[in-house]
């Protein structure tokens, strides 16, 4: 079943898109995503997919094209990075407000200024309120698996929402790793035939999508978006269960690593979680009960489940590869909101790391876990939010 390959993150996600064979893809190059849609453009040229590809003039137009195709009743994908996602911002809200299940891999990249092409999470965190479901991926395998599952999640008849699949720019998009591809027919059967919901053009039953709605009903539309988000968690888990049957790989709302009996832990997204797991192992070898939680579903955020997973810790460091300047890191804000309702909560600190592609090194995880050990020992912490790995 399937095959084992050496592939980059971009290559893996392009392969998933080839297997899914969407009706329409909009493509606009932006580093570090470029090579993903470029590979897909080759699949189109080589006749390996039936997709109508649109080489558009900007990301604003890319997402607009996706909206047009999805509203027209097609299965639609595109991909972007950093400033490209920022340029789509207006359209992101249109896509989710129209309940269009577009799938978009986001190869995470920092935002200007200063101009930087490398990976951090500022792009997707900036889009966290846009009404899109967000799945995050530690490596190429997870990016591939999440892309396939994203179609099932977004297209679920109870959901019908657009989905972002996040993977770290360059660190994952351009690194080759060992991974497993599923067979084409297995993926095809898993994602199923696309069923459109209320597509234009339906002459028997004409309708408008995204019309002007003023204070009389706009509020209700937004509440509907809020309500559908509350159903997403169950669908994500159902789809993950089905996916396990075809792949043998388990997915949840988040991944826990040696967390069950842990006293200290880090909460960390994407590729840096892989680095941090090694250091958790080292601390375990020293007899220190360290653990890790890696969110997968960031929107909607699984507050109760995260609180349950972290409730027995004595101290936890939430690590952000993005900053909300003047606030805490975005992941910290979610996790602290999750833990707030508990009577007894771990001490929480927030580290900002790896902006603009700054490497997250094993020693950074060591520093953080050492600090948590000290916090547990003394019951005191020096500061809630701090940058680490800074050149002074």
């Amino acid at each position, binding site marked *: 079943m399937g095959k084992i390959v050496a592939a980059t993150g971009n290559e893996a996600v392009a392969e998933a898109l080839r297997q899914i064979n969407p009706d329409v893809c909009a*493509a606009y*190059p*932006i*580093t570090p995503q*470029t*090579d993903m*849609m*470029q590979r897909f*453009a*080759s699949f189109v*040229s*080589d006749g390996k997919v039936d997709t109508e*590809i649109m*080489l558009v*003039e*900007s990301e604003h137009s890319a997402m607009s094209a996706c909206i047009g195709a999805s509203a027209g009743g097609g299965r639609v994908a595109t991909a972007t990075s950093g*400033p490209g996602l920022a*340029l789509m911002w207006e359209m992101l809200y249109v896509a989710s407000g129209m309940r269009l299940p577009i799938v978009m891999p986001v190869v995470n990249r920092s935002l*200007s*200024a*200063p*101009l930087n092409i490398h990976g951090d999470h500022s792009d997707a965190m900036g889009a966290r309120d846009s009404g899109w479901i967000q799945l995050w991926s530690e490596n190429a395998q997870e990016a591939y698996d999440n892309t396939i599952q994203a179609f099932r999640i977004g297209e679920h008849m109870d959901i019908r929402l657009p989905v972002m699949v996040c993977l770290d720019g360059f660190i994952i998009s351009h690194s080759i790793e060992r991974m497993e591809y599923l067979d084409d027919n297995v993926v095809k059967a898993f994602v199923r035939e696309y069923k459109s919901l209320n597509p234009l053009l339906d002459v028997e039953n004409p309708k408008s999508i995204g019309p002007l709605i003023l204070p009389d009903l706009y509020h209700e539309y937004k509440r509907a978006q809020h309500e559908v988000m509350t159903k997403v968690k169950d669908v994500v888990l159902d789809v993950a269960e089905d996916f396990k049957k075809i792949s043998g790989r388990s997915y949840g709302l988040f991944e826990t690593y040696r967390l069950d009996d842990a006293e200290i832990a880090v909460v960390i997204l994407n590729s840096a979680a892989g680095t941090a797991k090694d250091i958790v192992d080292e601390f375990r070898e020293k007899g220190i009960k360290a653990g890790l939680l890696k969110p997968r579903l960031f929107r909607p955020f699984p507050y109760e489940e995260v609180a349950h997973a972290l409730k027995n810790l004595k101290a936890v460091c939430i690590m952000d590869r993005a900053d909300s300047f003047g606030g805490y890191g975005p992941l910290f804000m979610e996790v602290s909101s999750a833990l707030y309702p508990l009577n007894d909560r771990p001490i929480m600190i927030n580290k900002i790391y790896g902006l603009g592609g700054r490497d997250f090194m094993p020693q950074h995880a060591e520093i953080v876990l050492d600090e948590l050990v000290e916090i547990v020992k003394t019951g005191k912490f020096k500061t809630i939010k701090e940058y680490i790995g800074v050149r002074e």
Partner: protein
Amino acid sequence: MMKKLSKMPESLKPVHFRFCPGCGHGILHRIIGEIIDELWVREKTIGFAPVGCAVFAYDYFNFDVIETAHGRSPAVATAMKRLLPDRLIFTYQGDGDLAAIGIAEIIHAANRGENFSVIFVNNATYGMTGGQMAPTTLIGQKTTTTTQGRDEKATGYPLKVSEMLATIDGVSLIWRTSLDLPKNVISTKEAIRKAFQYQLDGKGFSLIEVLSPCPTDWWMSPQEALSWMRKNMIPVFPLGVIKDKYSER
């Protein structure tokens, strides 16, 4: 001792260009540096760096440079020139920056007749991201997103931005040149000097389109790239003055 006939313009930093072999950007940077020296305006020049291969303009130009978001230079330059009307302000934009993502900004800056100069580098591809189709890509030209050659039915025609902008009343000077031959390099210098002089004289919007080789993304040697330009690109994008509001009078 031999007489020194040539030296680096003061408007360029004494550093090596990191462009690919056979790329036109180095020649163009040198021309711009020479003109700014010759016009004695280095101390009042502000350049606008694009997103694209010329993003590192600030590493080479020895005067103030601002980096803008992809395609937005004409809007940013409009405001800066209005605030600082005595400065020489030019944008340096590729075909991705100007003809694709930033097409709205350039049209409206031209329509307002803004008094700054635009250097528009056309190499018929998206260079920095690795040779994808640009709006200026020729019919049949192979790129990484049109691997069977550009098909006008799916992706349209090579966009002739200069001819399009020349229809706008607010425009003063539009001139297309090329870097394929020494004589064309010389006329490129003449064109840019004229554009800068128009700006200094308050004559309004000017754009110099420079056809420039990209051997790397055309999959050619530098020499083949120059022949390819002459054979394929110049017939689609003919050289010469396309509009000069002040010579018509």
